[in-house]
């Protein structure tokens, strides 16, 4: 079973590597979206720090949202999703592998990139470290909650707009705890509470959503 999941992860890596435009466009979206916030409040330099946690986390949410349509749509279109259903293990295991790969490709890249572009908000070093950690432990929740929406909106006309409407409300708790963790680091109080909540959301998401996502995919394929 571990070998099966590892194969799914390897497959997703190979496909992401052969199709780098997906990742690059998501990362550039994050860079541009997060750069708009300082420009919008340009004269008030003192507000930048207060704006930073929310702005960076909202940019990361939107960037993740941009990556979701590819999660199942390509496999659905070319028929490989049907073959995954007929694989050696139930579809939920393949979905779990896809979520892990999605996190490693998009979530970890965003977490690595965010501190670099957080410099424009004049954040101190320890807040950058917390920002990195919060994105690292928070993005699995973004991948797994988003995948529910991606599976439900699969194959629908105008599915992308529906996907945003379905997924963004689910992202609210992640946003609150993620931004609060960075805020706490800025204020000099410990960020551990926020990070622990994010980790809990991510673990719950990664382990409880794959069966739901698999059920949604089965319904779409019928």
């Amino acid at each position, binding site marked *: 079973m571990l070998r099966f999941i590892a194969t799914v992860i390897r497959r997703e890596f190979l496909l992401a590597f052969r199709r780098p435009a997906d990742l690059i466009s998501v990362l550039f979206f994050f860079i541009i979206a997060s750069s708009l916030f300082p420009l919008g409040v340009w004269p008030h330099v003192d507000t930048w720090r207060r704006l930073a946690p929310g702005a960076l986390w909202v940019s990361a949410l939107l960037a993740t949202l941009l990556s979701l349509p590819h999660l199942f749509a390509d496999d659905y279109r070319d028929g490989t999703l049907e073959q995954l*259903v007929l694989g050696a293990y139930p579809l939920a295991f393949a979905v779990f592998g896809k979520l892990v790969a999605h996190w490693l490709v998009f979530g970890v890249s965003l977490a690595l990139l965010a501190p670099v572009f957080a410099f424009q908000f004049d954040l101190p070093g320890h807040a950058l470290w917390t920002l990195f950690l919060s994105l690292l432990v928070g993005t699995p929740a973004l991948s797994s909650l988003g995948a529910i929406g991606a599976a439900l909106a699969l194959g629908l006309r105008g599915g992308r707009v529906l996907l945003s409407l379905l997924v963004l409300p689910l992202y609210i708790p992640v946003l609150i705890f993620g931004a609060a963790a960075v805020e706490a680091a800025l204020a000099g109080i410990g960020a551990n509470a926020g990070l622990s909540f994010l980790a809990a959301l991510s673990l719950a998401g990664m382990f409880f959503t794959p069966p739901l996502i698999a059920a949604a995919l089965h319904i779409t*394929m019928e």
Partner: protein
Amino acid sequence: MTEKPRSHLSVLNLSCRRGETKLFGALSFDLGAGESLHVCGANGSGKTTLLRFLSALSFPDDGEIFWNGRSIGHALCDYRSRLAYLGHRDAIKEELTPIENLKLAALLSGEDFDPESARGALKRLGVPDGDAIFCRRLSQGQKRRVALARLSLLDRPLWILDEPCAALDPTAAGEVASMIDAHLSSGGLAVVASPSEDAFPHARKLRLSASC
């Protein structure tokens, strides 16, 4: 390899309606090891629907499907890992080479991958350069051949093929027919849908018509 248990597929009173119209009703048949069934009928007569029922990708309104005497609803996962399905879509990743496609398909089906036999299967079906070209560059018919090579590599007793010869030239279509024969003679089963009546002369025929 150990002696394979004899496989048996039987279908009892299967029916399907699409809205108000009845596609087919009270469909029953038995298929034993080494036997094949050719599902023919006009476009829209329910061939693909029937094949998707048989591959447990969707479920009928009425009737049951038994694999080795057990209803597939009770052992869905086990049944799904006994069959190989080739649908209208080839299930080929365009970003990968044919060999990479076959390797992933084999590993995801829980089987070992032997690159030599994969190259052999591709060669038999006339796909050159198994690892020198991305599937994006292959023609529609060549992609179909890669998809057929996948079938021959998987060790699965029941083949469910939806118009396997679509987009293929006559030579490749002949190769498909002999592939199916080889599969049957090694104790496999095959259900093949194709609109042409005389495509598979050795197979039993099941004619679907919208009025039955």
